[in-house]
């Protein structure tokens, strides 16, 4: 009987994503700014969910928290046409090679959002002696934005999307919720 593996930062047999996004060959600032602006305004996610956070990802694209408002509702089933990979949920060791492979298949301007505590650090599954869960998807992929929560609220996922847009264009495009004026008549709304 082999002794159980010690808890390493990256389990044996797993490899992190090797592909890297090269800097542009010709660096013309206004053109880069223009394309980055367009990329920020149409971040198409992959239809890809791992655990319960995927339910929140579905919720954020549905009626109440509509991700389509920011042009990000086009869930592409094929990874070749997607820009944003939302790692929504627990990345188990068994699934990790597939996640890495999916990331490597995505064409170049690609962004990764780690949704939920499991994808950030292993979340509730991180304890002494655990053997099945990768503790943080950032050991495998270069993560752009971490969205905490267990699972994160749909508003938090939207906020993560805004952070990727801010990362691309170095500007926050939408007002912060706490700076908005209070809703004038909350009682009149949504009353059946």
């Amino acid at each position: 009987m082999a002794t159980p593996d010690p808890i390493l930062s990256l389990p044996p047999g797993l490899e992190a994503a090797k592909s890297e996004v090269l800097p542009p060959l010709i660096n013309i600032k206004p053109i880069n700014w223009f394309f980055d602006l367009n990329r920020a305004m149409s971040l198409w996610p992959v239809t890809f969910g791992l655990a319960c956070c995927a339910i929140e990802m579905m919720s954020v694209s549905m009626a109440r928290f509509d991700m389509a408002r920011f042009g990000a509702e086009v869930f592409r089933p094929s990874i070749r046409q997607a820009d944003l990979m939302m790692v929504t949920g627990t990345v188990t060791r068994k699934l990790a090679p597939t996640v890495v492979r999916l990331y490597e298949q995505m064409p170049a301007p690609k962004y990764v959002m780690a949704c939920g505590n499991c994808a950030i650090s292993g979340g509730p599954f991180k304890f002494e002696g655990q053997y099945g869960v990768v503790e943080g998807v950032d050991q495998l992929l270069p993560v752009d934005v971490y969205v905490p929560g267990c699972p994160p609220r749909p508003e938090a996922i939207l906020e993560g999307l805004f952070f990727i847009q801010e990362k691309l264009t170095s500007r926050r495009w939408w007002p912060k919720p706490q700076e908005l004026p209070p809703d004038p008549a909350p009682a009149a709304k949504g009353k059946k």
Partner: protein
Amino acid sequence: MDLSIVSFVQIIVSVLLVIALMVANAVVMVYIERKMAGFIQRRPGPYEVGPYGTIQAVCDSMKLLAKQVFVPGNVDWLLYFLAPVTAFLPVLLLYLPIPFGPYLTAMNVDDGILLILAFAGLGVVSNLLAGWASNNKYGVLGAARAVSQSVAYEIPMIMALLSVVFLTGSLNLTEIVDSQGSWPWQWNIFAQPFAFFIYLVSLIGETNRAPFDLPEAESELTAGFHTEYSGMGFALFFLSEYANMLLVSFVCATFFLGGWKGPFLDGFWWTFIKAYAIMVFMVWIRWTFPRVRFDQLLNINWKWLLPLSILNLWLTAAILKILSKIY
């Protein structure tokens, strides 16, 4: 048609205008489709990018333009790059015989509908090439489905159009418009309601739209024949899909809805209003009905549409014969 300088310049100008129409149509239709999807699902749709999200489609196309063109291993290089172009190119020719207005026909050929039906088949070839060349099991399955579906749905489509041709006695699209009147009850839709219905169903099947979008069914084949295409290749497939939608809508408007003739004031605006009404109808259908199974799809065609369209054609011919004996 004499090939003088004038006709040559005319063809060049009309092809350029058709390209402009195709691109503008794709941009407008992406916006309309996403917005309508939103309204049907009780959400606002694209809202923040530009006023009411109007420049959303421009942003999408710019992003696709700047996306990495990815070539997977073991693909057939020539066919892989040829397929999006062959999806896009025949559509240029297909718009030429369509009478947009009384004086707005790029190429007034005598058998215009024959030209359209003959070259519309090339779109399927591009789907087949794309699925085959990308060396992907989902791609090949999607391509096979695209071919069997398009071949099947072309037949009732042709039968439905043929019954209108029987009525008019001409394959020329301009003459078909001329034979109809300005008011809705003078249009062919009242003379041929069954043909109109059959055409309406089979045009959705022909353009691979939901509920008949089996070639790119997400839940079974990730994205069908364009699974391996990224960036501009994918964008060209989408462009040609929307261009094909617009083309079948124009043919429908010409054959059944009186073309550029309408109440009060004839003109090209009626063609566009009717064609876009059919486009909006197609989008409405897409976001309302679930996808059919593949055997259901073929059963609808072979067991219902085809016998009905043959019956309709036979009835049209018989009635025309009887009428010609009487008068």
